[in-house]
Structures are given as C-alpha cells and as structure tokens.
C-alpha cells in the first residue's frame, strides 16, 4: 500500500519537510538529493492532485518520491520510461532500475558512491527499451524486450580493461545476483 505525502516546503538543501496526514516529519537528506528532488517533484506534481497543497502542491506517492540514497542514479531513466507507452516493458524496466538502486544501497555500505554516473533509458525502434550505464572504459546495458524471455544484459570494456565482452539473458531468478556482480565490477573499475 502506498502512503501519500504532501510536500510542505523545502527549507534548505539538507532538510525536506513533508507531511503525512497531520504529522509533520523532517527527512534528513544527503547533500546531492535535492537535485533529484526537483526532478521528482516536477514530474510527480504533473500527475498529482495539485489542489491539495498551497505551497509546492501535489500529492506524492512514497515509492517514487521518498528519496533513498542513490536515487539520483535512476531518476532520469525513470522519467524517460514514464513517457513510453508499452506499460509492461516500462514496468519491467522500472523494476530493474529499483533493483539496481537497492543493490547499490546494499552493496555500497561503507563506500562513497555518489560519483557514479546516472543510468539512462532509451526507447528503441525494435520495440525494446535500453537501459544503459556508461563509464569511460566500459558500459553496461540491459535490453528489455517485448518478449521478456529475450531480455538481455551486456558488459563491454575497452582495450584498457582487456576488451571484455560479456552478455546473457535476464531472468527473474538471476537478476539480483547479476546486478550485484555488475555493481561489483563498477565499484572496482570506476
């Protein structure tokens, strides 16, 4: 069940005040979160009932709005996905992005990973969605296909990292292990 929050104000870059029902909560934020906030607020105000707020406006759904650490990695991709029409592919791709984000939260304990680049999502003419994560010396991609059994991933690197070329199919059974393995590679080589 989704909790509904109402934005009251952003008093400073570090603290966002939100209210749930009548109780006001302060949410401590990492210094880079507000950038994500603005994008997420912009998007969700569009779909929200703006009559509910006189300040910033809008009813925001928790899963999308309550920013978790590293949400900045996936926010642009999620915004791009939400402009696409094939809802089943969008749903698969969105879930994958949350798995990546949550795996980074889990795996990144003790690391400072705010330097990581954001993932991007692209609509492709063949009906698939490409989620890509690029670095100077390698890139990781996930292709979410109309036939979900054909969805695949890849990791490729340049000569500096040994011309790695790896790919495979994505399945619900292996996705968590796959993502953790890829994140391990990212942390080791970025």
């Amino acid at each position, binding site marked *: 069940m989704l909790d509904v929050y109402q934005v009251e104000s952003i008093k400073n870059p570090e603290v966002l005040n939100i209210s749930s029902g009548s109780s006001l909560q302060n949410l401590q934020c990492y210094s880079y979160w507000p950038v994500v906030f603005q994008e997420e607020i912009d998007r969700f105000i569009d779909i929200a009932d703006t009559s509910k707020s006189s300040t910033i406006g809008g009813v925001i759904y928790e899963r999308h709005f309550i920013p978790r650490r590293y949400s900045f990695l996936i926010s642009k991709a999620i915004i791009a996905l939400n402009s696409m029409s094939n809802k089943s592919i969008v749903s698969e791709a969105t879930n994958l992005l949350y798995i990546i984000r949550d795996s980074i939260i889990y795996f990144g304990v003790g690391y400072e990973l705010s330097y990581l680049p954001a993932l*991007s999502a692209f609509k492709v003419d063949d009906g698939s969605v*490409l989620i890509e994560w*690029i670095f100077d010396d390698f890139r990781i991609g996930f292709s979410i296909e109309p036939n979900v059994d054909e969805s695949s991933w*890849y990791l490729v690197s340049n000569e500096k990292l040994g*011309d790695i*070329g790896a*790919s495979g199919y994505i399945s619900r059974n292996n996705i968590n292990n796959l993502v953790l393995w890829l994140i391990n590679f990212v942390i080791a080589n970025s």
Partner: protein
Amino acid sequence: MINIDYPDNCLKGIPNRDFLFGDGTIATHLFYFESEDAREDGWKEQSINWEDDESAIDFTLNQKKDGDLQFKAGIAILPRKAIDRINRSPMVNGVLSYERKRTENNHNPYHGNILLKNDVIKSKMKQIAASLALGVDRRQSKVDREQIT
C-alpha cells in the same frame, strides 16, 4: 583483418538526439543491426560512410533525406581499428566485417557498411553494438564543424 583500401575512420550518422546521452555520448542502439537489413549473402548491414578524404565529414553532415538533414545530431567517428579489435575478441570471433559499397547512381561515393553475420542472436548483436559505441572516438555535429571552419 588487413584492409589497405580502407581509411582509418568510418562515420556513422546520428539521426537525432534520441541516440545520445545528455552529455552527447553515443548510446548503444545507434549501432544496432536490424533484422530487415539481413541480406541473402549471410550478412546484416548498417550504413556508414568512409572518411576517405577531408570532404567526407562535411558530405555526411549535409546528407539529406526527404529534404531534411538526415543526421541532425551529427556523426559518430569510429576508428576502423576499433572494429578490427572487437572482431578479433574471442566472444565476437569474426562475425563482424565491413565493406565499401557506393550507392546507386554513385550519389554517395563514401558509402559502405558495417556487417554482422545473420545468425548472430539478438543479445549478442546488442553486446557487439555496445562495443562499437564504446569504440567511438568522438562525435561531431554540423555546429561543431561550422565553428572549426
């Protein structure tokens, strides 16, 4: 692969910014091979131009389709050495190639194709496309070009 008849770079047109990251980096799907481009000789083709001379970049940037610029987001410049290196890797192992193929009426003397074997499965094709995108040396747009000249 020894290709003394080919220049150092090929030029891949970018139809629009849907093929770019926000910072202008090339996204992998620019280099996808499409099923409808499969040929009877066992290869799928994707069009490129060869940078045979100094005019090739301007020629490519000014190519038109239905009266409009065909490559509104510019071109990706891909060294031929990168294609060769990808093709030599164990996971690719010779399923890539390239050719020079001038268009009918010789309207485009620079035209050629990057080729991929027809029997390469889609997931592998996308991995290879990612390697090609990673191998891109730089992007050049018409605006960039005009500032240079």
